[in-house]
């Protein structure tokens, strides 16, 4: 088993709608894989396929060495999942919810007790364990649901928009916990999100899906390099018209704009920009500051979505 998760041209149609269209990717064990895409792009459907909750129309997949289609139960035994909904029993208390799933996963009563305490204390909900979940806020429910996912220490975790409804502090704490978990226990995480900053912070690999098609897979850095030309801004003096013309003639330059003492240089995709500063110094420019504009994943994502629309 080389990959924790692997799909081969997997597709799922609902009538005319191709919710997932020939999607292939691999997830290395012990890493976090982020699935990015706009609403209705097929993220949730992909998770359902991987958990054997839907049958693919075409193609195949593999989770921890098992085929979700024919060995669904083996797959699910190795996984934990936080799906679109929290899946909490709102008429029951927080403790009863976790206790039920603890039993489902065959934890002994001792283990259940300790693990529930440990997890709930971490999210500050242990004191409220005997409350009915119904009245809880969205964020509290989400935290409880995340605890439920971790309860049985699964090898693979599926998280469908895990920080939806969490406040910034809670999201950040959740991200830290998740990173910690992955580093220490070697679990593999497959998460979907709309939050690109989150994907950038968490994921070693990111897949971008749109209209059911996987349009790109790579590390967040790779994606950024691939898709957005880098921008360098130079603050200083000694910029002449002649200099601007000669910069424009260099290789890999897309545009040069001078505004007051700011020279804004855009490089073409993937171009090497390391020669720029020595070149300017050689030309007698006095440089006060060099700012390298790094495209955020969000910029890249938006550009990609626009390009696909064209």
């Amino acid at each position, binding site marked *: 088993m080389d990959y924790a998760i692997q799909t081969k041209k997997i597709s799922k149609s609902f009538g005319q709608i191709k919710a997932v269209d020939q999607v292939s990717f691999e997830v290395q064990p012990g890493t976090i894989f982020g699935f990015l895409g706009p609403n209705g792009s097929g993220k949730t459907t992909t998770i359902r396929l991987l958990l054997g909750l839907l049958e693919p129309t075409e193609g195949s997949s593999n989770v921890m060495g098992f085929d979700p289609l024919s060995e669904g139960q083996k797959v699910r035994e190795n996984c934990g999942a936080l799906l679109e909904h*929290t899946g909490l029993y709102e008429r029951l208390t927080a403790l009863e919810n976790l206790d039920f799933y603890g039993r489902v996963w065959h934890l002994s009563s001792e283990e259940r007790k300790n693990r529930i305490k440990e997890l709930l204390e971490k999210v500050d909900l242990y004191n409220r364990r005997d409350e009915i979940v119904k009245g809880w806020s969205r964020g509290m429910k989400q935290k409880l649901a995340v605890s439920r996912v971790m309860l049985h220490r699964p090898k693979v975790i599926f998280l469908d928009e895990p920080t939806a409804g969490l406040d910034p502090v809670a999201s950040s704490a959740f991200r830290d916990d998740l990173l910690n978990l992955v580093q220490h226990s070697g679990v593999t995480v497959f998460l979907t999100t709309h939050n690109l900053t989150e994907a950038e912070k968490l994921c070693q690999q990111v897949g971008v899906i749109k209209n059911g098609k996987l349009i790109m897979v790579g590390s967040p850095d790779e994606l950024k390099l691939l898709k957005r030309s880098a921008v360098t801004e130079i603050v200083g003096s000694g910029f002449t018209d002649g200099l601007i013309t000669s910069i424009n003639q260099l290789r890999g330059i897309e545009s040069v704009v001078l505004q007051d003492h700011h020279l804004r240089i855009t490089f073409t995709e993937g171009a090497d920009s390391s020669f720029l500063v020595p070149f300017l110094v050689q030309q007698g420019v006095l440089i006060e500051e060099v700012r390298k504009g790094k495209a955020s994943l969000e910029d890249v994502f938006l550009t990609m979505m626009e390009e696909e629309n064209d």
Partner: protein
Amino acid sequence: MINDILIIARKDLKEVISSRGSYRSGLMYLLIVIGVMGIMMPLSSGRIWLTEPLIPLVWAWFPILLVINVVTDSFAGERERNTLETLLASRLSDRSILFGKITASVIYGWGLGMISNLIAVITVNVADPGPKFQFYDPLVYLALVIFPLLACLLMSSVGVLVSLNAPTARAAYQKLSLVMLAVIIIPTLIGNFAGEKIAQQLTLIFKGVNFIQLGIGVALVILVVDGFLIWLAMQRFKRARLILE
């Protein structure tokens, strides 16, 4: 697997009892049910309650109603409250989920019936003290245990079938009501059209038979139907088809 079935049944029962807002009001409701079936009804009929199977059996419709309430909520209710998918994503097998749901509803309806029956014995003996404590006639008691069990099982399997693909518990309840209506109306219609002659013949046949044989026969028929319905539910339980949008 039995362990898993019981885990689900336990959770479902907890949910049913707390569905009235709190455990306390849920338990109050159960007490009222037991009070009516275990105290009021036997009080009004007296000692004959212990010897005449038809009287307690007539009251067995009530546990069956309770089964309907629980079972229509099983899959459809979990779907409605968005808990079904998470349950399906767990390690539980198809069968343990299915049988867990059936078990919960049967335990609820039949169990309440059984408790009420036992309380009825005390009620009758206390209200009308005889020379010695009187229990049910063994055959009567056997019928009281077996027929409600089979009937609850029947209701439960029909209910699960209906609930499996219903979007909400309410929709499942309505669908089940239609099925029940058909079950009651069709024989009545046949009876009306069949005319006097067949009715007379039937009466003759019934006069000739021994009630024990008839009971065994009826029980066997229900058992076969139960078996068929459960088999059908197992066939129709496909994880990949349980997620509806």
